[in-house]
């Protein structure tokens, strides 16, 4: 994965803004743990947004500090603090209700004999509910884990698939190229001309395929010495002793990775390759001639 690209993708901003799904959040956290650059970017985003938030500090209405703090204290001191918290009581008299008003005398009498049975029934209900809830939580947990696993597997499979597709496409393209080259090599109209290394490069070897009727010229490098930077090989046709430019060799052709079609040549008795400045030269530098061969 290209981390810089990931950072630029906007997902980290979404993470800090809290708009990602749980799964996406986990991915960000995992990458943050793995790559310091991600961690650092998250920090920058957090600071930026915190600063933006702090810039919005506003003067609260009069008396709010006392009201809010008192309301908070009441909420956290109530026995049902958690429940009360969710309702966020403002400072009102009714909040004192949970203290439970003193029960009336008859209510006490009645509740004495009804209490045990209803309490135990209630106890059973609570126990059953807790048990169900626990089972459901375990079930959810297991299902969630399995879901996560499945999602991961799916993602892996998708990545693999797209990689295979890319490889296959490259292979098909290469096969087409090779087929075209083979066609040229097999054609009767092309004549193969071996160009052998000169004393400059005794190991050098190349071959030219020349079609005298269509004037097409292809070059097929077997081995040419590596070039200094700024230089390029150039093919020349020799027609009655006169050099005719047949074009410069691409890097691909120079390294022997593929055949290259050169400029059409009307007539030639020999071919040669010289080293010229990148882009080619109008006349050959004979001292740099690397390979030479006649038809």
């Amino acid at each position, binding site marked *: 994965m290209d981390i810089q690209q990931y950072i630029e*993708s*906007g997902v980290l901003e979404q993470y800090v803004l809290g708009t990602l799904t749980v799964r996406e959040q986990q991915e960000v956290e995992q990458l943050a743990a793995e790559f310091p650059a991600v961690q650092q970017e998250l920090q920058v985003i957090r*600071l930026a947004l915190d*600063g933006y*938030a702090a810039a*919005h500090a506003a003067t609260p209405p009069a008396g709010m500090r006392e*009201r809010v703090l008192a309301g908070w*204290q009441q909420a956290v001191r109530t026995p049902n*603090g958690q429940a009360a918290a969710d309702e966020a009581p403002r400072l009102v008299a009714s909040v004192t209700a949970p203290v439970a008003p003193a029960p009336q005398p008859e209510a006490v009498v009645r509740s004495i004999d009804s209490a045990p049975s209803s309490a135990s029934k209630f106890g059973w209900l609570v126990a059953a509910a807790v048990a169900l809830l626990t089972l459901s939580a375990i079930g959810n947990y297991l299902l969630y884990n399995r879901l996560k696993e499945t999602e991961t597997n799916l993602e892996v499979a998708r990545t693999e698939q797209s990689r295979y597709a890319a490889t296959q496409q490259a292979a098909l393209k290469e096969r087409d190229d090779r087929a075209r080259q083979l066609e040229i090599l097999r054609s009767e109209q092309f004549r193969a001309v071996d160009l052998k290394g000169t004393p400059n490069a005794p190991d050098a070897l190349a071959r030219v395929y020349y079609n005298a009727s269509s004037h097409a010229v292809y070059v097929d490098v077997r081995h040419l010495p590596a070039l200094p930077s700024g230089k390029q090989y150039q093919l020349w046709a020799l027609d009655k002793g006169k050099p005719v430019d047949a074009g410069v060799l691409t890097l691909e052709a120079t390294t022997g990775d593929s055949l290259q079609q050169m400029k059409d040549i009307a007539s030639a008795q020999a071919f040669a390759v010289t080293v010229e400045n990148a882009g080619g030269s109008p006349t050959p530098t004979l001292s740099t001639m690397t390979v030479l061969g006649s038809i």
Partner: protein
Amino acid sequence: MTSKTSEVAAITEEQLVARLRARDEAAMTIFYDKYGTALYGVIARIVKKEEIAEDVLQESLVKIWHSFLSYDASKGRLFTWVLNICRNLAIDKIRSRQYRVGTRTQPLEDSAAQWQAAPSAFKPEHIGLEEITRQLNPEQKQIIDLLYFGGYTQSEVAEELDLPLGTVKTRARAAIKVLAKLIR
């Protein structure tokens, strides 16, 4: 008031966190004095109504108190954590159905802007809103406000402003870069 200010100034974030973790109720007052105006400002900007902002702030304090043990200082500053709690509660509030009916159609830039800005006691990177508004271009500010104060996702912003999602992402990122530079 004077003793309050000096106590707030003297306490470090670490000490405050330790005291809150120890369920020290007095620490909550210090917490309020340190972060209250900033949190109130953000909530007010989101819910746009003073009395609702006050309710949400109080709810937030209760939630912060009850869930304080889940605050992990190694994962970020206290301010970031509490800000998220406040933002989430405020956004939940405006997303609740009865609230939407009345307010959702109002433009974002209204009442909140009329409230007087207050210096926050919490200052490490405090920078004026005016300066920020000068530096962010209007498109960037609009997007960052929808994302941060409107509780919109990037796709919702794209839909709302009728922009390609890619543009929203680029602008949001650019805006955050500007903010980061200002605040650093």
